[in-house]
């Protein structure tokens, strides 16, 4: 079998490198290169999912290249059920994003270079099984956002005046994410030193910590550093304020990746690093996290109801929906964890679809201000269908992947946090309110003469990204079993160590050992 994971990671990186050598004027060649490399990654990711064996525990498709041996750093790639799904999500979103980017006309070469670097960074985070490279790719994914939003983004306007300038939005985003990253870095370095394993390799570190767990008093302090640091990008309330503005100011293809995938970096890091390495810290802190998730769901939802900019509505809805993901993670039960990971996938695809729709509307009408829009279903029948589908998926209608995922979170978390789950279910109603309001305000109603000239996505090529994303939503929504089996294989292994009974047992063993040593 070909080395699938290095292929997935290397294709966009080599694409970015190749683009540096192409002349600025050859726009169609540049677009073709970008579409080819992301398409290759997508094919490799589909092949990986196809050949993934859920029955086998542990990491699959592993590749390890020693990098800095004196510090125990290696370029270690591998997937289990959790990140395999996320790699597929990212491959889908980035390929559709490249196709959507055909609307970009200005400084095309630089745009695609930064976009491919961003894609490489995110793939790197999902694939790395090494703390050094995890952080390396994480920062690498954050920084291209700055020029992408700053140069190709747009100001958030309301009634003709600028509410947030794109310069403000992009700087806020970059500084928030970098601050979060360095807080997490402090935690990771502390963990590296205290574990005594002298390795950045994740499986080796997990193995070491399983045999000699960190003292609970240490886990109590390192765990919040990781959760706060990665929670910024997740985005966890009250650290979310960068995210809706950032989404709104970004060009649509970047918003797609940003809301669809980048936020999942945070929740993935919390699953993989915080829970995977510090199970006892997780047991101590997760009730607090669950409380914050409720704030995420309700606060994000209420604020989304009040917005008038299309992208801000979807931006706040994203931070609201990430509350369900984090709530599922906080439950620490396999069922809820499966739901959380599946929801990451479902929400990523759904929100990418929504941003693609809004991006198309904005490109055609040059406005995203809800009171100015209306009746677009007359001119944009295809886009209108896609928009309605995204709204239905977002409000958790059966048949779409989001329904399955949210249901799993609610069922899996009921025993652990019933009050929070009830609040979460109420959040679904809020979602329905603002999504239906959005659909009614933009698509339905009498046609407006100002928009008589707008064009639908007419060519098969322009429709491909929308169709791809909708098919993914429907496939997983109607037949979730194959993907769920893959996710389940990953989350079970992970949670075996984080389960309260297991922790209690280990604690007893430790006390027993101390008692033996004491006299």
């Amino acid at each position, binding site marked *: 079998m070909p080395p699938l994971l290095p292929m997935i990671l290397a294709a966009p990186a080599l694409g970015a490198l190749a683009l540096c050598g192409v002349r600025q004027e050859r726009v169609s060649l540049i677009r073709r290169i970008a579409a080819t490399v992301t398409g290759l990654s997508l094919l490799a990711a589909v092949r990986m999912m196809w050949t993934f064996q859920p029955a086998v525990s542990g990491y699959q498709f592993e590749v390890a290249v020693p990098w800095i041996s*004196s510090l125990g750093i290696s370029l270690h790639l591998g997937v289990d059920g959790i990140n395999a799904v996320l790699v597929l999500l990212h491959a889908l979103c980035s390929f559709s994003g490249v196709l959507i980017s055909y609307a970009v006309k200005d400084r095309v070469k630089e745009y695609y270079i930064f976009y491919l670097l961003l894609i490489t960074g995110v793939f790197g985070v999902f694939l790395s099984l090494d703390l050094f490279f995890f952080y390396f790719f994480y920062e690498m994914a954050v920084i291209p956002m*700055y020029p992408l939003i700053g140069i190709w983004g747009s100001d958030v306007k309301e009634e003709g005046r600028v509410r947030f300038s794109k310069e403000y939005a992009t700087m806020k985003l970059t500084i928030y994410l970098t601050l979060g990253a360095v807080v997490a870095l402090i935690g990771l370095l*502390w963990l590296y030193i205290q574990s005594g394993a002298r390795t950045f390799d994740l499986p080796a570190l997990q193995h070491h910590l399983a045999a000699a767990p960190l003292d609970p008093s240490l886990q109590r302090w390192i765990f919040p550093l990781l959760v706060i640091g990665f929670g910024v990008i997740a985005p966890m309330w009250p650290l979310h304020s960068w995210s809706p503005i950032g989404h709104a100011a970004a060009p649509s293809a970047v918003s797609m990746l940003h809301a669809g995938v980048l936020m999942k970096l945070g929740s993935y890091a919390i699953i993989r690093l915080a829970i995977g390495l510090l199970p006892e810290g997780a047991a101590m802190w997760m009730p607090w996290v669950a409380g914050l998730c409720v704030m995420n769901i309700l606060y994000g939802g209420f604020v989304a109801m009040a917005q008038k900019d299309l992208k801000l509505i979807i931006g706040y809805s994203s931070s609201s929906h990430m509350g369900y993901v984090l709530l599922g993670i906080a439950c620490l039960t396999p069922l809820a964890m499966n739901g959380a990971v599946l929801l990451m996938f479902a929400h990523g695809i759904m929100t990418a679809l929504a941003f693609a729709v809004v991006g198309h509307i904005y490109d055609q009408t040059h406005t995203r201000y809800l009171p100015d829009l209306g009746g677009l279903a007359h001119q944009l029948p295809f886009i209108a269908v896609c928009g309605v589908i995204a709204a239905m998926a977002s409000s958790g209608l059966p048949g779409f992947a989001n329904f399955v995922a949210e249901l799993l979170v609610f069922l899996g978390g009921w025993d652990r946090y019933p009050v929070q789950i009830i609040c979460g279910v109420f959040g679904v109603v809020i979602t329905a309110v603002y999504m239906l309001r959005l659909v009614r305000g933009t698509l339905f109603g009498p046609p407006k003469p100002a928009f008589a000239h707008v064009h639908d996505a007419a060519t098969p090529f322009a429709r491909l990204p929308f169709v791809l994303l909708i098919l993914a939503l429907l496939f997983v929504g109607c037949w979730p079993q194959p993907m769920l089996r893959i996710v389940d294989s990953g989350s079970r292994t992970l949670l075996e160590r984080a389960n309260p009974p297991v922790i209690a047992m280990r604690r007893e063993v430790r006390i027993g050992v101390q008692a033996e040593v004491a006299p």
Partner: protein
Amino acid sequence: MIPFDWRLIAVEAAASVWILVLLVADMLMPPARRRNLWLLAFAGILVCLTLLFWQQQTFLEGSAQEMLVVDAFSLFFKGLFLLTGLLVIIMTRESGLALNESPGPFYLLLFTALLGALVLASVNDLLMLFIGLELLTFSLYIMAAYLKRDARSVEAGMKYLIMGSVSSGFLVFGIALLYGFAGATSFPQVSHAIFLAPKTPSIYAGLFLVLAGLGFKVAAVPFHLWVPDVYEGAPAPVVAFLSVGSKMAGMVALMRVLYGVFLPLVATWSNLLAWVAAATILYGNLGALPQTNFKRLLGYSSIGHAGYLLMGISSAGWSGVTAVGYYLLAYMLSNLAVFLVLIAASGALGGETLDDFKGLGKRSGLLAAVMFIGLLSLAGVPPLAGFVGKLLILLSAAERNRLWLVAIGAVNVAISLYYYLMIVKRMYLDPPRSASPIPITPLTKTALIVLVLGILAVGICQEPFLQRISTALPY
């Protein structure tokens, strides 16, 4: 008496000879052709680099009369000094400054400064420490004030001279105290004397005075006050040498002295430097936030970088020194790239304030891209060189269990990213003041590309560089 081996001081000897060559050439050449002196200076550095390479290939190690030692540590840093000199020559040629009206003495001073730095890399004696430091600093006093008709340049030179002389006074006083106590100036002998009687007050006085003298060179808080003014006023190529070559030399001398002489007092200076490092990082990065002049901003940022380097030195040990070596390599490449762009662009942009850089991305894609990469590398963004340097420094401090210091260092990465990105914002997001493209000479273009490739190589393939550095420990 140990027989004297000339090969040990081959590089320093070549540099000294070249000072004379430049002096004579400047006198003999007709004034119209003196612009070409840069070629001679360039050749001189290449000769020194060749000799250095030969020393390294023959595994030459030892000490010349106990005064200078040649080991992997000194060879590594001498290489960095010479490369810096090479780029400063290119910058000088590129800058449209009055420097080029009579470049002879300028290149001569550059060589004396380099000679001082070379001596400091090998220093093994308190007297040599003083001589090396004064050679370096005296040359820089004159170089900073080289634009005689520019009041700001003269002011910069004057400020530097006054602050520098006071700190030299501290250093000499410290050396005198140590000599009075140990009866010798050679590092091993003084170190042995300290080892035998570590609690003597005059030793502590000597330690603090020497640290004060060197702290001035590396711009550590509270000896940093000269930096912003000198950086703003002095000619840009001189500032480049000041912030890269001179800072590196100061750091190398600091490591030589701390590990060579004061190793018995490691607990004292390690804690002291940790506090100094924290203050320096905070001062430099917070001070850079409101700046509007590019060189002044780089001055503050260089104070911040000095803080990170001191942090690495303060975590005394293998990992700390390796991290400092790596950080210096990354800092050299990134800072030189930034300065080269600054110099190549400032003529066409008409000034050195930050607002002059508005729209650079539209006027010269290459210059803006190199500046972008250089600044991000200084901020510590992967996959660039600065990231690995910062990570190694933080790791070394974490190994000493100084979590508070790690936290200060890590948070300041985000702060520094803010002011570096404000420059990027001006270059890419703001409209240019004029649309005419900026011409770049082929030599500068080559140098820019080499620097960027270096930044990427050091950032991505860490292993070969790390191995080279980790074999180069001072003791």
